[in-house]
């Protein structure tokens, strides 16, 4: 096969893993980073060139938490449409959640997800179910799932509630060096709830989920992670100040505890639900201002390991219903970077290097994705090129996702993905 090469010239490279924050050229060849050097220092010829003047060149973004809905729910999203949306959002790798129909709880389904027939345009890393059919009873075959390519296990959408089951999952995960991802929600406390418990839920007459329902599970899990040597706990879509305290406790104790935060939780508040707008209904729900402040602080100080979208597409008929009956979740792949730049960088002055870290080396470390999340020579040729100053308007109608359930329709953003490169190939170019 003929070798393919692409030279990204004139850009400003931010690669937190390699501690690079400087003008650099990057040469990709045969799907890998062949060379990274000061401007105009790369002598090797390239078949293709990308003019990155005025743009940031970063390692390909990794999203630890997406729902691509296949198998079984292709009317919401397919791997082809979901990964196209990922590419448009600058993500070169996505980790898919197993709460599909059926649940991804066997090696066969992991293989199915990774098959080229699915038409993925970015890397797909399946996360498999931690328990059979995610029923929370008996553990799946972690080893077989891992060998098939699963990068972690979870029962996302539901918590692993039972203490003994969670302990066993962390134990088995420790033996295999596999992270257990927890959807931290004490569902015994959240039955019938459709938003955060607070002034807004009271006013709207909706049952609310308390912050304690999340924090309680995180506290228990961190304690278990501290007890079980080598276990790896990853807290999905963390949304409360109290859960952050528990994560900090675990990190201080040198337990292998990581967590992710979504763009909507660092941007929006429970009050944005307004008058029952179902595009603001997700689980975990939008929280209080104190929670949001704590999250922004934790994104800044390093407590949070990754920004993950929890991209959760739903068909119109699943959202165009009474608020209490509407499906939980919003799409998020195409707006994540824009929200991070608009909210975290411009509003809260978090440096771009830290934001890039939260999209690249941060998530790569969480699931131990080797040779991803950095542009060091020899790494996979996954690159995200963005313009941190470009103003643009997001229009849901033009989304690559099959679904339109976003609260950000019509939002004016600063910061736009200009090109997404996977394995040395350009898979997305902004028009």
């Amino acid at each position, binding site marked *: 096969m003929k070798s393919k090469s692409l030279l990204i010239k004139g850009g400003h490279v931010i690669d937190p893993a390699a501690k690079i924050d400087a003008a650099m050229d990057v040469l990709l060849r045969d799907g890998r980073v062949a060379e990274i050097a000061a401007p105009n220092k790369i002598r090797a010829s390239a078949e293709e060139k990308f003019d990155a003047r005025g743009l940031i060149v970063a390692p390909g973004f990794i999203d630890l938490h997406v729902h691509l809905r296949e198998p079984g729910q292709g009317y919401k999203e397919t791997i082809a449409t979901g990964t196209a949306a990922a590419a448009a959002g600058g993500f070169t790798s996505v980790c898919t959640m197993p709460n599909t129909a059926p649940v991804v709880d066997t090696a066969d389904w992991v293989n199915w997800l990774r098959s080229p027939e699915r038409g993925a345009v970015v890397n797909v890393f399946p996360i498999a179910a931690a328990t059979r059919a995610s029923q929370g009873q008996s553990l799946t075959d972690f080893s077989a799932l891992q060998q098939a390519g699963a990068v972690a296990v979870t029962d996302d959408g539901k918590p692993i509630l039972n203490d003994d089951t969670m302990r066993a999952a962390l134990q088995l995960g420790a033996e295999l060096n596999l992270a257990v991802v927890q959807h931290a929600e004490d569902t015994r406390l959240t039955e019938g709830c459709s938003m955060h418990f607070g002034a807004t839920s009271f006013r*709207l007459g909706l049952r609310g989920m308390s912050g304690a329902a999340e924090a309680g599970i995180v506290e228990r899990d961190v304690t278990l992670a501290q007890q079980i040597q080598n276990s790896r706990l990853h807290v999905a879509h963390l949304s409360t100040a109290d859960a952050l305290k528990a994560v900090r406790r675990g990190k201080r104790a040198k337990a292998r505890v990581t967590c992710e935060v979504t763009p909507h939780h660092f941007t929006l508040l429970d009050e944005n639900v307004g008058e029952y707008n179902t595009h603001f209904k997700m689980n975990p729900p939008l929280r209080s201002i104190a929670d949001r402040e704590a999250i922004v602080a934790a994104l800044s100080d390093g407590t949070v390991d990754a920004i993950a979208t929890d991209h959760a597409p739903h068909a119109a008929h699943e959202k165009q219903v*009474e608020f*209490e009956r509407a499906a939980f979740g919003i799409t998020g792949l195409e707006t994540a970077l824009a929200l991070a730049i608009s909210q975290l960088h411009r509003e809260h002055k978090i440096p771009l290097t830290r934001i890039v870290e939260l999209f690249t080396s941060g998530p790569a470390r969480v699931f131990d994705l080797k040779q991803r999340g950095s542009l060091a020579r020899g790494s996979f040729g996954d690159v995200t090129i963005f313009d941190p100053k470009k103003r643009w308007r997001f229009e849901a109608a033009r989304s690559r996702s099959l679904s339109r359930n976003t609260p950000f329709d019509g939002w004016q953003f600063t910061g736009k993905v200009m090109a997404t490169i996977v394995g040395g190939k350009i898979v997305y170019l902004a028009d």
Partner: protein
Amino acid sequence: MTTPARGSLLGIEHLETKEILRLLQLARRMNPQKARPLLRGKRIVLLFYEASTRTRTSFEFAAKALGATTTLVLSSGSSIEKGESIIDTGNTLRAVGADCIVMRHPAAGAPHFMAKHLDIPIVNAGDGMHEHPSQALLDAVTILKHKKSLKGLQATIIGDIFHSRVARSACHLLTRMGVKMTLCGPPELVPDVAATLMPGLRLTRHIEEALRGTDVIMLLRVQSERLAGLKIQLQDYIARYQMTAARLKLAKRDAIVMHPGPIIRGLELTAEVADCPQSVIVDEVRNGVPTRMAILARALGRA
């Protein structure tokens, strides 16, 4: 998404004060026994997704008193049972010629959702734990039959405020009219966050404190099954919050006792209180019809 059709009544919270005043004035002028047929030829659908006795009948009598045709659609025994969505049901009713839909639904916000998708007025007859605007209006009408004005009064709501749409609507309406409101009950039924509903709302756990100097006492039904879920002892509730003749003496001498019904004698109130001269519980039911006549006349632009 569109704005609700003119004449819709979805809640008190976002209803303009002048509209509240207009409805109260209109309600006091309505007489079910000798009403003009303002709504002759109008078709009003009573769409009930949840059980109701007094609200349903009084809306029906109100509509008929004004000459309208009514039809009752219940979630059981209709297409709703087969899984039809609320918008599709609304569009169907619109297509068969409904001029107005009076709607009760167990989900908060359901009438608001319907109103966004239909071009005919929607009247909220109770949505989940959210609002019950016609009840708040008829309560205000009832108070005004016993007090000169709402402004300057003190009113106390005692009981399960958390689950109560009646309480939310009453708070919005009475506060707006200048009534000083106090909420009273155990934290499970009156969470601290209740005080955030509007500025100036007072919250207390002590019934004696709540009653002192009050002009209006509104009691709410206690659902024993709900209490069980919240791990409160019924006997404790009765001991601390039941309205008794002795406690009634703490309120102003001319205080009135209200209750949206159904009442459970021996639980939130004693039979003695329910039947005492200060009790206006039956009055409230009676005022339901003229109040709902006013709401329907306004809904259909005949007021």
